[in-house]
């Protein structure tokens, strides 16, 4: 029943978000039906665009899993952006300095990006556990530290011609592989898709089938009860944010050496914030996260096409996502509605 309720809540939030988008399109004198048809066609029209949607969803799945994992332990990390940057920086640094066969290279890159993200997540986790530093503030601060680290490190050590971006990632260090690119007719899709799916499965197993997952969830439900039951709460908090950071770092690798061909400086990746939407809409479950990131993937990869065809600003996509989060946050409205409907049905029977 809980799954059904989550689905109902998520769908209600999505529908209201799309409706709000329609109102906005009307407000600027555009035709919403036309707008939405181009938005979805832009994300799904042909095999290349589907590939791009999947590539966008790849990073969102990983950062969304990162958020969901922290949420399950009752921690609200906003640090996915910074962890992505650190993971991406590690991946870029290795991609531009080592020369190894592709598979060894990719293994090292993925592990390094996970480690970099994990460190960036473990710091706020440790500070929360040991000193009670609020994780929302510390993760935001670390986002900016990561931002400036990339801002100064990339031009100093990894730049090519332009000051504002790293040199191009060589093919042997990129997650893009020819056969996948060919199937999807030259889209941005890359091996990250399998990494993301694998991560979703691993996280599902960890959360539902292991002692670690049980302890983490127990801390999330009620940390005092968990402590009373003999669970080491500080250890679990630090561990949870560390794992969350590792996932976001992996997301950074799939973006900076998969989707993109180099690392731009001066950008705090928006996937970090969208990840909150993904986790919320997916009710913090790995399956839900995958589905939600596919949906947001469509919105993100379709908005450019919609803009080109109708002149509606592409920010409508971000606005819809933001409004969906707001409605997902106020889901108590829908929960009441759902319970009301259920009670009504029962009375009829």
């Amino acid at each position, binding site marked *: 029943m809980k799954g059904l309720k989550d689905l109902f809540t998520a769908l209600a939030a999505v529908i209201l978000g799309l409706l709000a988008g329609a109102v906005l399109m009307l407000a600027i004198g555009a035709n919403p039906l036309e707008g939405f048809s181009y938005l979805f066609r832009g994300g799904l029209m042909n095999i290349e665009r589907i590939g791009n949607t999947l590539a966008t969803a790849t990073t969102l799945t990983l950062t969304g899993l990162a958020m969901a994992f922290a949420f399950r332990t009752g921690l*609200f990390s906003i640090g996915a952006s910074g962890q992505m940057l650190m993971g991406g920086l590690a991946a870029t640094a290795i991609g531009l300095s080592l020369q190894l066969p592709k598979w060894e290279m990719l293994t090292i890159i993925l592990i390094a990006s996970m480690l970099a993200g994990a460190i960036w997540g473990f710091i706020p986790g440790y500070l929360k556990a040991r000193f*009670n530093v609020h994780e929302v*503030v510390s993760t*935001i601060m670390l986002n900016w530290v990561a931002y400036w680290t990339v801002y*100064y490190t990339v031009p100093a050590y990894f730049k090519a011609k332009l000051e504002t971006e790293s040199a191009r990632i060589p093919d042997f260090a990129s997650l893009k592989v020819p056969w996948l690119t060919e199937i999807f007719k030259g889209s941005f899709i890359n091996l990250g898709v399998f990494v993301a799916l694998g991560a979703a499965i691993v996280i599902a197993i960890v959360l539902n089938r292991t002692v670690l997952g049980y302890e983490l969830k127990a801390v999330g439900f009620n940390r005092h009860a968990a402590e009373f039951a003999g669970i080491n709460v500080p250890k679990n908090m630090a561990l949870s944010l560390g794992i969350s950071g590792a996932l976001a770092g992996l997301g950074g690798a799939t973006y900076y050496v998969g989707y993109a061909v180099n690392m731009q400086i001066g950008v705090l990746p928006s996937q970090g914030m969208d990840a909150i939407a993904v986790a919320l809409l997916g009710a913090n479950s790995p399956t839900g996260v995958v589905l939600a990131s596919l949906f947001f993937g469509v919105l993100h990869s379709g908005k450019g096409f919609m803009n080109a065809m109708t002149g509606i*600003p592409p*920010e409508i996509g971000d606005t819809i996502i933001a409004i969906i*989060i*707001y409605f997902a946050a106020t889901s*108590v409205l829908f929960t009441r509605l759902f319970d009301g409907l259920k009670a009504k049905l029962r009375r009829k029977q």
Partner: protein
Amino acid sequence: MWDIISGIFPYAIAYTIPLLAAALGGFFSERGGVVNIGLEGLMVIGNFVCAVVISRLQPKLGTGAIWLGLAMAAAAGLVFSVLHAFASISLCANQVISGTAINMVASALTVFLARTMTGSGNVRITLGFIPFDVPLLSAIPILGPLFFTKTYATTWLMLAILALSWFVMYKTRFGLRLRACGEHPHAADAAGINVYRMRYAGVLISGALAGLSGGAILVTFSGEFNGTVAGLGFLALAALIFGNWKPLGILGATFFFGFAATLANVSQVVPAVSKIPGLVLKAFPYVVTILALVFFSKTTQAPKADGEIYDAGKR
């Protein structure tokens, strides 16, 4: 050395003022028991509305348009914060999630609107406030060059609001009640205070101040809306914690951030500072915030019910 300090002081103060406004907004919201992560977004709203009003009305009203823009920025922040109040107080939503949603809606919606208006997504104003030297006071040695030269009108406005905030929070019935709702809402309820109404008031005041803060950024040092206030809202939130939820503490913390950020920004042109690596300078305020939180979080004086949902049926 003296030249450097007296040279960057006015800029540091100009940078501090919006931070102070937003942090005072957070002060009202959190003393009432509602965490407002949405400060950043509310500042963006204020920044946008102020830019639109001024760019439209400046030819007709001149300087009057700037004041009108600031007033409208505060009004827009107040209206927008109703969304946060409704979600987190009436619907018992998670306050952090609701605030995050506010941030995302604000930055996406304003750029969306700006793009339909100007095409580029930026709104520029031709003239903001012009810095002026305070007569007589600026002639005082040492203090004059530091505090009374090249000041903006918004600086004096915000300092007045700071004093007013202190008075309202500690010397009026309203302030006492608001603080009660942030410390122990059930006791406040039992004493006959309408907790929901007080918390709404706290959040709406925070919205107005954050909106004003966004406007102040525009009319002093930025001059352009571009869809972001570069994390100042989050920094204000950190300053609130750093300043231990007290007006003078907040003033000190925001000035510290303002000074550190200005020092980092002007580092290239000041020889004494330019030897320090840019990364160290830029990351300094954020790292210090974390360190400060490490030292202060154990003995923190956060409002006891800060961030907790108030449900009258739960005891």
